[in-house]
């Protein structure tokens, strides 16, 4: 199966490891992976802030980049969720609407792709540890991916998955919200950090780098020892 990696701009610049892990996981389960270099950002920072015109420039670039891909898979529920919104954004646009539909239909978040498309729930990770999982809002509510990440984690023998209290509440990231409404965002992430501590987990796992930077950044500021990791790092652990 031919898969084009959608790295997301955050992982491209800040989290090379998440990209490496994603490539290796996909290859291990038998996919032929390529990385279209024309890709940039999904458009979400501008779109969600109301700058729709500006966001469309980014979106068009993404449609050009993945035009010939069979599947587009990325390690982010939020960014893939944005790709899936393209048909709505370009509704009625004679040039781009069909392209938007085509990209939306072939785009998947990594865990969703593994579980729902490939039917794989065991990726052969040997990770060991007490883990709690934060279900990012766009992953669960925009993309509808609720069970796949947990199914994958639960199938790792050494992982003890502890339920996160009030897990459904947003961590306060929200893209530009974290800066524009920093005071509110701070309260939200502090509560999330508190809930993570209550679990006693050694690792907080999530599927969206933005949320993880937010929670991890807060926990580090508070001097907490919990390690905040992207789910790909757990799924690709081989020792």
């Amino acid at each position, binding site marked *: 199966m031919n898969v084009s990696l959608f*790295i997301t701009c955050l*992982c*491209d*610049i*800040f*989290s*090379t*490891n*998440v*990209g*490496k892990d994603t*490539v290796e996981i996909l290859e291990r389960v038998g996919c032929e992976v390529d990385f279209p*270099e024309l*890709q*940039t*950002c999904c458009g979400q*920072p*501008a*779109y*969600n*802030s*109301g*700058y*729709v*015109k*500006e966001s469309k*420039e*980014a979106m*068009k*670039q993404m449609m050009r980049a993945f035009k010939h891909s069979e599947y587009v898979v990325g390690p982010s529920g939020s960014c893939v969720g944005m790709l899936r919104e393209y048909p709505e954004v370009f509704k009625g646009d004679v040039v781009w609407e069909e392209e938007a539909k085509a990209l939306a239909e072939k785009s998947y978040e990594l865990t969703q792709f593994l579980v729902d498309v490939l039917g794989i729930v065991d990726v052969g990770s040997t990770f060991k540890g007490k883990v709690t999982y934060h279900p990012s*809002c*766009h992953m669960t*509510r925009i993309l509808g991916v609720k069970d796949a990440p947990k199914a994958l984690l639960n199938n790792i023998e050494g992982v003890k998955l502890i339920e996160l209290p009030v897990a*459904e*509440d*947003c961590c*306060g*990231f*929200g*893209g530009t*919200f*974290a*800066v*524009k*409404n*920093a*005071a*509110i*965002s*701070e*309260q*939200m*992430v502090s*509560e999330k950090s508190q809930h993570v501590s209550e679990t006693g987990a050694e690792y907080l796992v999530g599927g969206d780098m933005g949320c993880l*930077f937010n929670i*991890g*950044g*807060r926990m*580090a*500021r508070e001097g907490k020892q919990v390690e905040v990791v992207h789910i790909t790092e757990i799924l690709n652990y081989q020792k």
Partner: protein
Amino acid sequence: MSVRIGNAPFDERVQHGIENDFMRKAVSSAQGRFRSQKQAAATELGNWEDWRTLGEEIRSHTLENIDYYLQQLSDEVSKRGGKVFFAQTAEEANTYIQHVIQEKDAKKIVKSKSMVTEEIGLNHALEEVGAEVVETDLGEWILQLDEDPPSHIVTPALHKDRGQIRKTFAEKKGYDKSDTPEELGLFAREQLRKDFLRADIGITGCNFAVAESGAVTLVTNEGNARLVTALPDTQITVMGMERLVPTWEDLEVMVSLLTRSAVGQKLTSYVTSITGTRLEDEVDGPEEFHLVILDNGRSKILGTEFQAALHCIRCASCINACPVYRHIGGHAYGSIYPGPIGAVLTPLLDGYDEHKELPYASSLCGACTEACPVKIPLHEMLIRHRQIIVEKEKKYPVAEKAMMKGYAKWASSPAAYKLSTKVARPSLKLWTKDETITNGPGPLKGWTNSRHFPAPSKKSFRAWYKEREKGAKSE
């Protein structure tokens, strides 16, 4: 008069909310309770998603044909002896009601809980013509005594605890007993009973009017709406023009969704439907019944991308699900309609000038949309508002606009983007220590005031990938 409450700027209101520890504790525990009760009630009903779909269909059908159903409602109310007044504005509604008060020479008015009368500032208008108004919903009564606006549309005094309520009762009504709910409740009941018996006019809101019969339906837990509608000789009901359903069957669906979504109850203690004036063989009910149907900006929403906002049945489940409301409370929204639905409705009813921050007071987590029993795409509407604020109203910070223009250039140019993956790390070097930025420049500052920010990777992913590909080729 408008939906606005308070004059403080948005940031100040937010800060005020954040610093109110008591309110925040009360809100988060109430949210926990409401959420789990709603979940249990929805599960018990079964097929919750199908019910939501049905609710959405009924609301959408009603709004698509609102002219027809309003006419039908008006005809049916008139047929049953009621008088119908269509008020275009809050002023028109208030003036009409003032006239009724003066005509009846009414001194005392009892009211059951109604957000729409808050919206038009009715109590103030009633006092203007010399009438004494008593709110009879317990929460509203507490707020009235305290001269405090509601902070939630279903449980208006959510931000107060019993200690505060005891103090209010003592200061305003000479209460001298404990702060147990039983004693507080009994005291309120004794006080309010006197008002019910002496009232000349009863004023209610309306959860749903049934077009086919002209019945006004009130959903309550305290029974006060029954007394308000049964004892005084004159009843005035004020409803937003969208608050109607075509048939009794539709009402059953909507009430099922409302009580479960609002408080996790299968049914509230009282669901009261009142049809017209007292008939000759009846012993209670009003001799005179006025139905005031209020537009106040609603018809402007019809036919726009925001029409579904009029589907709202005021259950507050979006408010109960909202993590932003959880931390800032209702008053921070500066509107009698707080939370996600408030952030959507308030600018529609009262313009963007005073409320341009509200659509941004959301992380767009979508909890509201997921919670809404009639599937209003609330978080998407917040994005539409933002788009209007930026593209039509042009109420954006200049620096933000410049940044977004830069963003568009960056994200549409693979070369510029690629360059940024190379220079990101060196350009942040000055602020980086141990792979962490703790005191970032420019817009990063908002972030790093309360959180660390990671330094860009030593090698971008695309650089790593390129090397890997080269390695593979040379092998």
